[in-house]
């Protein structure tokens, strides 16, 4: 007998069912029921943001090198389980070649952003010339908790391409997975759970985007949104709801399947630049003042 798997949510390192008890059917390309997924509710968003907030301080404080290692570990785990993901992508309607290509690109992209984890600071940061006796420097800091509307056009590569640059940059995320095809993202949570990614750094919800996005966008404890194009009215509503706490909003309208759609900007757009004025003695110009 064939048993449909129920794909659960990923919140705070756990795999809970939705608080609402609802579910929906995910269909394969051929129209056959493929699996049941959780139809998440606003309370699941609340729980996920709470977990992300709780995880943020210690995740942001980890050494960039450590974050790099963890991202690299994700690539290793994905490599080890790539057969499963290829199979899932095929069932969802991709050709075998396309599925293999996408998973390979996902692995490459994990490695790519793992490499950036301890380097982007030096590229984005700067020491600034100022006309006073200050040592003035600017450094990037993570924005905090980022709400992610995962690319609704791809099952896995969009998710990876949005989430990896956020977390190597020290943010924690709450992701709304591809609504019609959430299973790859949920399967990826099993990789997250076994890759030393601390609980709460990545939280993944499946469900109805038009129900969940406004709640996430309006949440006062979410600092930024990584959006991908969906229905324009919904996009506008999300952006209006995000105003109250001045969330940063980035709309990523890309074909993430292209090898070139990766780069420093995907990290830096979710960093705040902090400039510090550090008073210094005019060592060279001063006499022995003490």
């Amino acid at each position, binding site marked *: 007998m064939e048993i449909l798997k129920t794909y659960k949510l990923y919140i705070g390192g756990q795999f809970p069912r939705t608080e609402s008890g609802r579910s929906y059917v995910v269909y394969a390309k051929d129209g056959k029921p493929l699996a049941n997924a959780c139809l998440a509710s*606003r309370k699941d*968003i*609340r729980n996920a943001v709470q977990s992300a*907030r709780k995880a943020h301080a210690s995740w942001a404080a980890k050494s960039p090198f450590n974050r790099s290692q963890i991202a690299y570990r994700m690539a290793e785990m994905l490599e080890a389980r790539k057969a499963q993901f290829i199979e899932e992508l095929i069932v969802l309607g991709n050709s075998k070649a396309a599925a293999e290509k996408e998973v390979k690109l996902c692995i490459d992209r994990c490695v790519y952003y793992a490499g950036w984890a301890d380097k982007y600071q030096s590229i984005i940061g700067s020491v600034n010339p100022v006309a006073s006796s200050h040592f003035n420097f600017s450094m990037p800091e993570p924005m905090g908790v980022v709400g992610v509307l995962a690319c609704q056009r791809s099952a896995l590569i969009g998710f990876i391409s949005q989430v990896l640059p956020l977390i190597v940059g020290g943010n924690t995320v709450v992701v709304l997975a591809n609504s019609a095809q959430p299973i790859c993202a949920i399967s990826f949570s099993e990789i997250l759970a076994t890759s030393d990614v601390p609980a709460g750094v990545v939280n993944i919800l499946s469900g109805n985007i038009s129900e969940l996005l406004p709640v996430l966008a309006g*949440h*006062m*404890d979410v600092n930024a949104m990584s959006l991908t194009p969906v229905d324009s009215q919904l996009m506008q509503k999300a952006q209006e709801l995000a105003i109250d*706490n001045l969330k940063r909003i980035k709309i990523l309208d890309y074909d993430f399947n292209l090898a070139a759609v990766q780069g420093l900007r995907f990290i830096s757009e979710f960093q705040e630049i902090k400039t510090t004025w550090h008073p210094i003695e005019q060592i060279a110009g001063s006499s022995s003042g003490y």
Partner: protein
Amino acid sequence: MIDAISSDQLSTILAQAPSIDQIGALERVARIQARSIKGAAKLQGLRMALSMIDLTTLEGKDSPAKVSQLCYKAQHLHDQADGLPTVAAVCVYPSMVAHAKKALGNSGIKVASVSTAFPSGQAPFEIKKLDTQYAIDNGADEIDMVISRGKFLSGEYHFIFDEIAAIKEICGPIRLKVIFETGELDSLDQVRRISDIAIAAGANFIKTSTGKIQPAATFPVVLTMLGAIKDHFDKTGQMVGMKPAGGISSAKIALHHLLLVKEVLGDAWLTNEWYRFGASSLANDLLMQYQKQLTGKYQSATYFSID
């Protein structure tokens, strides 16, 4: 005041104490905890819970500045929201009472002082009396005393009774809350026993915990104490207050406690004259839930003052 009672009388009180059906207690609180309060009732409950808070700071590092900051918070919970009450009281160590009294001025917010060598209660009786007197001399409106758990557990019930009665005598009209530290008392039967002793000895309030030990104000423990209050009221017509303290950090838990007291004791206890929450972080969660109810948006701790 209450005179020392005879061995026989105390024995009678203890003999009459019912034994607590633990499974029954668990089931009853489980039913309470399964309930959800929404809409206007939730808003009212949140406001009520706020008005019942004894905003507490009991740390070794407490300083006059910290206390005056807490007192400011007590009076200005969240100025952005209209129609909020103030908390009921600020709860501090005896050494901080004078500072709190000054900071609260004529706001109507009470100053509660812990005493009797809080939190352990391990000090000579004379010192406990001095501790209490000092707090009162400095202007405390309410006294939160701890019982000697070691003595209680070794069965010296007369000692416990006499100690509470003696502190109540010092307090006079000042309201006395008696802290049991139920996390150290092992069983619900013990909780019921100490509740009866404290009430007989003149406690105005009975309070679960110091907040220093887990578990603290669990629902079965609170249910047991409410039962003792109810039996006393049914027998004598005298009301005794209840103060769960420790571990009540979320609005949801607080609302469930209010449900419990409403069910067991009735509406008369739903006022800060007879019901208090001992808490420090609860206030902000209540405020965040309150804002959430008003705006429909989940809130962030960033926009609420720490203390």
